[in-house]
């Protein structure tokens, strides 16, 4: 794991005991993990720090999983969402599919499956992000900005993409 970049995972679920164990296990496996217990808390976290993957419970009091995903993506457009549903109802899962969930699992999810999904989602995220980054760089180069403006624009881009 050491030579790989660490994957930043945002967990959103109102079941606190579950998140406690889930985050401990993911941390031990080398992921960077932030546990939040509501949609509102997750949005706050996304405003403060950068994440690759969000694992979102569909059914939560307050802001539900569908809404949470939507807001998260507004803040961080490349964030990939994995949806957990205890519902067994396709409808809400499909609705979250409209929010482009990377994958959804029926709760309780198998831990190993979840880890595989997180890694796959990360790959997809990087691909998407690289493509867009390059596109934007090209646009920058052909925009005829001066060296100073260019430097600032690149700095902005870095920030958007969470590249340090």
């Amino acid at each position, binding site marked *: 794991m050491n030579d790989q970049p660490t994957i930043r995972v945002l967990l959103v679920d109102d079941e606190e*005991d*579950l998140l406690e164990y*889930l985050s401990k*296990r993911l941390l031990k496996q080398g992921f960077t993990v932030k546990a939040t217990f509501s949609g509102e808390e997750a949005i706050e976290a996304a405003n403060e720090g950068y994440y690759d993957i969000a694992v979102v419970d569909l059914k939560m009091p307050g802001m539900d999983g569908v809404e949470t995903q939507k807001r998260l993506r507004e803040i961080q457009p490349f964030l990939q969402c994995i949806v957990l549903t*205890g519902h*067994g109802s396709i409808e809400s899962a499909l609705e979250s599919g409209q929010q482009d969930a990377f994958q959804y699992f029926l*709760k*309780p999810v*198998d*831990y190993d499956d979840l880890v595989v999904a997180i890694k796959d989602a990360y790959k997809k995220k990087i691909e998407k992000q690289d493509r867009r980054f390059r596109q934007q760089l090209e646009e920058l180069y052909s925009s005829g900005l001066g060296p100073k403006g260019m430097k600032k624009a690149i700095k902005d881009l870095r920030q958007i993409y969470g590249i340090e």
Partner: protein
Amino acid sequence: MTELKELKKVTRKLASHKIELYQTRGYLQCILQNSADLIFATDVEGSLVSFSKGGEKVLGYSWEEVAGRPIKDFAEDPASFERIMGACQEKGSAVALDVPFRHKEGRTVFCNTSLMDLTNRKGQRVGMVGICQDITRWKKLQEELIRVDRLAEIGRIAAGVAHEINNPLAVIGEASGWAGDLIREAKGLSPDDRHELEDTVKKIGDQTRRCRNITHKLLDFARDSAPTKTAFDVHELLKRTITFLEPEIKHTAIKIDLNFAEGPLLVNSDPRLLEQVFVNLMTNAIYAVLEKGGDNGRIEIQTLKANSEIEISFKDNGVGISDEDQTKIFDLFYTTKPPRKGTGLGLPICQSIVRNLGGDITFESEAGIGTTFTVRIPIS
């Protein structure tokens, strides 16, 4: 002269009455010939003097076979039928719902029955007329609907419970997983203790998965949301299902024969749901064949295309299903398999899915010989 006029008038009147009478008779005969109901007339004793064509269908007897016989003898319970007749005599008419009659072939036919007393001009009783409407099919449908309703209700309750249990189950699963992670890296444990602990944690995990399997199946069963339909080839789906089950078939001597209708079998339906049905039916067939043992295990998948529907059948030469079990296999949780092998949810799930898709599922089976399950679904 005036008498002659009068006579002519009366004759004309008579003639027109006669025509009217003929017309009425023709009308009545038409009813008797064409009505699907059993319409009969009896004499004062209650013996049949007329029996409609519909009656021949409802009870299976021809007029020759019933002529002169007491109508009550065709009721399943002659004594209570006599009571209805008595009521009719008293009040001039009687109506009784759901009266059981016995068909010539022995089965019960339920009829809504109305009786009317026949009297002549002098007010003397001359007999009785009856109309019996066969409601057997309707009644069966009603019972089936009630059964489906009850099943759906049980399903909803079960799903509610499953849903509540899911969250604690998830916590147990992750907690045991975490414990396992810790034990793996713990120092200073004796090999015996380590082994014991690892084993215990693994068991907790296994049993949690087992519970999850059940709750997931229950939630599948109770899912009554509208299917998401797309156009796809059922043959492709069947092949995918077999590939999916390959790990289970590989180590056995089971032979799978595909007897597909020519060309692709295109339908507009829900492939995800249908795949679940196929997997369940195949899993059952594989189990039945293995249970019987021997090297001649065979499962044949056949497809047929009709005008507006398709038919997929899974025929196995496994242990078969006893007559007694045949009435129960669609019940929730009914299984003949040992605890770890079956939950008794496979077939109820199949039934609920197939119905949801507007089709039906039937089976034929003989103990010791084998079983065929047939799924029919509309093309779109």
